[in-house]
């Protein structure tokens, strides 16, 4: 067997270093990567100093020219998003989305725990460039260590004059307020995050009109950016947009953090080149995951967090490039790949995701609140061998109330299945409802024979029997 070359870093559980240019994970090699001392000793806050010598407009332009795609899931260019604030409406706020909870996603927590100053510097650059008067750094509730690391970093940064009033002696002044959630996946959706930050139940708002850049926190223009997105800013400002776009492809420049979990030899978080790295590089490369565990066959993988329609070995050569992944029926989402080998019980695996989204429905939209629950219950019945043929059709029927029309899925040439491109239509405000359907739909479309086997021989039930047996 070929020797693997990527290096796991003991004090950074999960992270494995490879030869990729390291933009956001550069300091992970140091055991004290989270401290101000280390940050300052490794060019920390230099980008802030450089930004303060430029006009806010110049800083904004640099970020726009870098085509920094949002790393939270939607992949929208940050510099363009910043430009959506309506002119003349003040104050504007920055809300940092550190509510990472998409199944399979594990990068923002590392960035907060291992390099909190990089995130803080990114927040400051964003506030300076867009004229954001106050920053709220919202960390997921269940991340006690990230909260501690960021709290300490903020305290140190205030003390050192990097945050607060007249930063580094300039006119630029902004407070960063540390805030954390209390356990609700849906709060990762930006309008729900804002509701939560206003002290409410974290239910998404309808867009339009509630696009945060125009009507956000307290009804004011608000930029909501993901942790990894902001963590890229110090590097971009220090090295310039041209250096950033020199990495990766024109439409997907830079690097991105990707977590690979499940049945690979070396599950881990990898910083990879955006746009060019393929799923095969990532899953089979010797400096990355090194192949499927026990040299088993790959059966399927979820390419972009639990919400994403599934891929099979037929899609392994696709790169991390939205314009190529979308037409093939899925999305890159939050940079999370969950790998299933040949031993996987596909319907059971789909259930572990569908029950997640059913559980996390906030209850605002009926198709999600009811549909998610029904999908879970019907699927559970099938998985436990109590389902019938009718249940398989019912899963699709229920799903179509959430996502009418053709739902995206991958191609399986050997089974004569052609791809249906991303995205889907939806009857809900946010993506939680469709996400409950995505795993069911993918599993049932790509691996129907496994569902057929589970319901084979089970006789049709009356509606009363079905209603009782959930």
């Amino acid at each position, binding site marked *: 067997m070929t020797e693997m070359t990527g290096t796991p870093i003991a004090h950074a559980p999960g992270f494995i270093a490879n030869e990729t240019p390291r933009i956001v994970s550069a300091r992970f090699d140091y055991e004290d990567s989270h401290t101000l001392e280390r940050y300052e000793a490794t060019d920390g806050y230099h980008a802030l100093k450089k930004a303060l010598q430029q006009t806010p407009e110049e800083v904004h332009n640099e970020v726009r020219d870098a085509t920094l795609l949002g790393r939270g899931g939607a992949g929208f260019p940050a510099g363009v998003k910043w430009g959506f604030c309506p002119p003349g409406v003040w104050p504007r706020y920055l809300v940092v989305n550190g509510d990472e909870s998409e199944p399979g996603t594990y990068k923002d927590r590392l960035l907060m725990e291992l390099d909190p100053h990089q995130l803080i510097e990114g927040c400051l650059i964003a506030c300076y460039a867009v004229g954001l008067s106050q920053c709220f750094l919202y960390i997921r509730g269940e991340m006690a260590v990230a909260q501690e690391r960021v709290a300490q970093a903020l305290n140190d940064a205030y003390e050192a004059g990097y945050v607060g009033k007249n930063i580094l002696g300039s006119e630029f002044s902004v407070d960063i307020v540390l805030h954390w959630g209390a356990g609700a996946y849906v709060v990762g959706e930006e309008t729900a995050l804002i509701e939560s930050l206003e*002290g409410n*139940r974290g239910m998404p708002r309808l867009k339009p009109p509630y696009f945060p850049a125009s009507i956000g926190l307290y009804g004011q223009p608000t930029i909501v950016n993901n942790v990894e997105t902001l963590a890229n800013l110090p590097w971009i400002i220090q090295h310039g947009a041209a250096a950033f776009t020199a990495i990766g492809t024109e439409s997907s420049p830079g690097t991105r953090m990707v977590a690979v979990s499940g049945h690979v030899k070396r599950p881990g978080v990898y910083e990879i080149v955006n746009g060019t790295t393929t799923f095969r590089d990532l899953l089979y490369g010797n400096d990355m995951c090194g192949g499927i565990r026990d040299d088993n066959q790959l059966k399927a993988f979820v390419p972009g967090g639990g919400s994403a329609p599934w891929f099979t070995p037929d899609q392994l050569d696709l790169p991390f490039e939205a314009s190529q992944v979308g037409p093939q029926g899925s999305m890159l989402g939050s940079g999370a790949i969950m790998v299933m080998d040949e031993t996987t019980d596909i319907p059971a695996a789909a259930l*572990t995701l569908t029950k997640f989204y059913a559980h996390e429905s906030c209850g605002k939209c009926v198709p999600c609140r009811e549909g998610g629950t029904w999908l879970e219950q019907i699927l559970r019945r099938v998985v436990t061998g109590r389902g019938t043929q009718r249940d398989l059709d019912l899963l699709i029927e229920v799903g179509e109330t959430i996502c009418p029309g053709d739902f995206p899925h991958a191609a399986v040439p050997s089974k004569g299945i052609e791809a249906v491109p991303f995205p889907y239509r939806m009857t809900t405000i946010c993506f939680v409802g469709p996400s409950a359907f995505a795993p069911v739909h993918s599993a049932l479309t790509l691996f129907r024979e496994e569902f057929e086997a589970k319901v084979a021989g089970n006789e049709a039930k009356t509606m009363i029997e079905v209603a009782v047996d959930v």
Partner: protein
Amino acid sequence: MTFFTDDNLALAEEIIGRYPKPRSAMIPLLHLAQEQEGWVTDEAMTQIGELVGTTSAEVLGTCSFYEMFKRHPVGKYVINICTTMSCALMGAGELMEHAESRLGVRPGSTTSDGLFTLEGAECQAACTEAPCLQVNYRHQYRVTTDQFDELVDELASSGHAVPDHGVLSQIRQHIPKDRSVGAVPPEEVTAAPVWLSEDGES
């Protein structure tokens, strides 16, 4: 009605002062209440309502939305075993079964000695280190059934450095007065920030 200790009340007021609107402090204050008592009592919600200027029913509305807020006493250690896909693929089901028999409780229940509450949890952002669990929201990675037993033994004999349930970050944010800009409420600030150019546009 007074729920918060004097120290926590001072802290609550400091926290409220950071936000443009007091209601934004609701979740931080619920955490503070849970830190003080281990769970969120009715008295706590009443006082939080008074502090942020709303009714206790509104506080309950927010409180009940979020999984981490407990409306009844729970164990000193809340053990959350992740049951979502990556962990399920790597043996979370077996780990949960083992935990149930080791602790003698079903998920959602507390052991009779009040030490442990077992819960099935959703994705904990440690997917590469599956199966994982959290004790009072602090991770344990790649947990085998043997390691689970060791962990429980350690916790039971207080040999493990995990703060009691309710305590999250043991480090508090402190904004020094001389460095603080202060909250920026929309009612009071209508001009562009001073560092922007004169026309107020970036």
